[in-house]
């Protein structure tokens, strides 16, 4: 595959719940190593778009191509294979409460990838090490802080060797003093060249990491472009306005 040809193509995705159109004809492409950031008001469809990409929510129409392979939404095998290749990080971590940090990572390796227990443990330890939690493998989710939980969740996703990592507001459920450790992990992933699409309200992630910003409103991408273009002060873009409001908020809090 050509390095610059898109690894993910999302074409004309539409999703409604009842009369409520959540996604209206959304299209975009993601190139290997690229980081796209979804911003915009709540209810704009960011989270649904991410969940449509790995078909946790199956789109009503449109198509998704991963590594030039069209996904057949009605084929379970297609969906399982798609999801193995697309990692997902949730706002509220969604760790498996009955498993230790280590087992949270090994379970999918063993059940989905059918890797031997020994190999799975080895891989899981490596991933925990990477997110700075090598000494916490025996702890259960209830014994971890929010930031640690999110780092375990990231390690869990990365152990599956995803082609793309999707992050759905990865820092929104965290106490302010814990956000830093998660941002550091995400930044180090970016430096390693991980392909990512992320919904976030975190200014440092938006302006510091995004190759392109997608501004979503009412189920559509209404504005897109690199931060250098959209986020210059005095710019009248929606993205700039949005980030200005986020900045004001954080100043009020600070």
């Amino acid at each position, binding site marked *: 595959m050509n390095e610059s040809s898109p690894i993910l193509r999302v074409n004309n995705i539409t999703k409604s719940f009842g009369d409520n159109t959540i996604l209206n004809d959304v299209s975009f492409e993601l190139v290997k190593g690229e980081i796209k950031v979804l911003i915009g008001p709540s209810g704009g469809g960011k989270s649904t778009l991410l969940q449509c990409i790995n078909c946790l929510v199956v789109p009503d129409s449109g198509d998704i191509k991963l590594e030039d392979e069209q996904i057949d939404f009605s084929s379970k095998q297609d969906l399982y294979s798609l999801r193995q290749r697309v990692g997902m990080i949730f706002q509220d971590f*969604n760790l498996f409460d*009955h498993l230790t940090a280590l087992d949270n990572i090994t379970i999918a390796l063993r*059940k989905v990838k059918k890797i031997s227990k020994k190999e799975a443990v080895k891989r899981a330890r490596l991933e925990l090490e990477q997110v700075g939690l090598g000494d916490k493998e025996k702890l*259960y989710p209830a014994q971890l802080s929010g930031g640690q939980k999110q780092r375990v969740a990231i390690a869990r996703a990365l152990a599956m060797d995803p082609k793309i990592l999707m992050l759905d507001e990865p820092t929104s459920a965290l106490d302010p003093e814990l956000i830093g450790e998660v941002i550091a992990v995400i930044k180090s992933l970016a430096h390693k060249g991980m392909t990512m699409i992320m919904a976030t309200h975190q200014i440092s992630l938006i302006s510091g990491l995004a190759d392109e910003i997608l501004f979503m409103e009412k189920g559509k991408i209404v504005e897109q472009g690199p931060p250098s273009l959209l986020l210059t002060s005095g710019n009248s873009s929606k993205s700039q306005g949005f980030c200005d409001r986020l900045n004001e908020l954080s100043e009020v809090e600070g």
Partner: protein
Amino acid sequence: MPIALSAVIDSLPYLLQGSFITAGIVVSAMLLGLVIGVCMAVGLVYGNRFIKYPLTMYVWVFRGVPVVVLLFLFYFGLFTFLDLNFSAFASVTIVLGMTTGAYQANIFRGAILSLPQGQFKAASALGMSNGQAIRSIVLPQILRMSIPAWSNEYSIILKDSALAFVIGAPEIMARTQFVASRTYQHLSLYIAAGIIYFLLTWAGVIALRKLEQYLRIPGYSHHGSN
């Protein structure tokens, strides 16, 4: 009327043999109910309406009809009609198992619904099938959660098992009645039977509480626990 301790002591080995039969009925019925309950709960939560409708009917029937009626219906009616030559022991076990299965289905269903939905989503996002997610993520958690309610169910089924005497299963109640009718020591013997039931309930509930503590997920605090 004096308490005839000697009558009780003389018949104690005979009554205690009955308690093994009672224990056999209750343990088998509870395990049968566990299998029925787990399968039904999964069907009730994740199934489509063609699965949900008959399961809901099942729950209504077994909750709505007295155990003793079901016992007669199965033992004298259905099993005879189907030419199944089940013993009284087997019949009682099946009826109690199917009854507690209906109640256990609701226990497990409630537990599944109380699990944070995100965990199932996360399992799917990792590429697990629904079956894998249910087996590896949902069941291990809801079974733990359900132990207190299950222990309640145990104590109910244990006492319902005394109804087995009406179809002649040689358990505690049947044996007590047999001895009492011969020795006329009703007061002493039924006190003894009551104590045996009480001790069986107590032992089972304590054992389940130990199991609950043993399986408790570290880090979760429980109010009022020791």
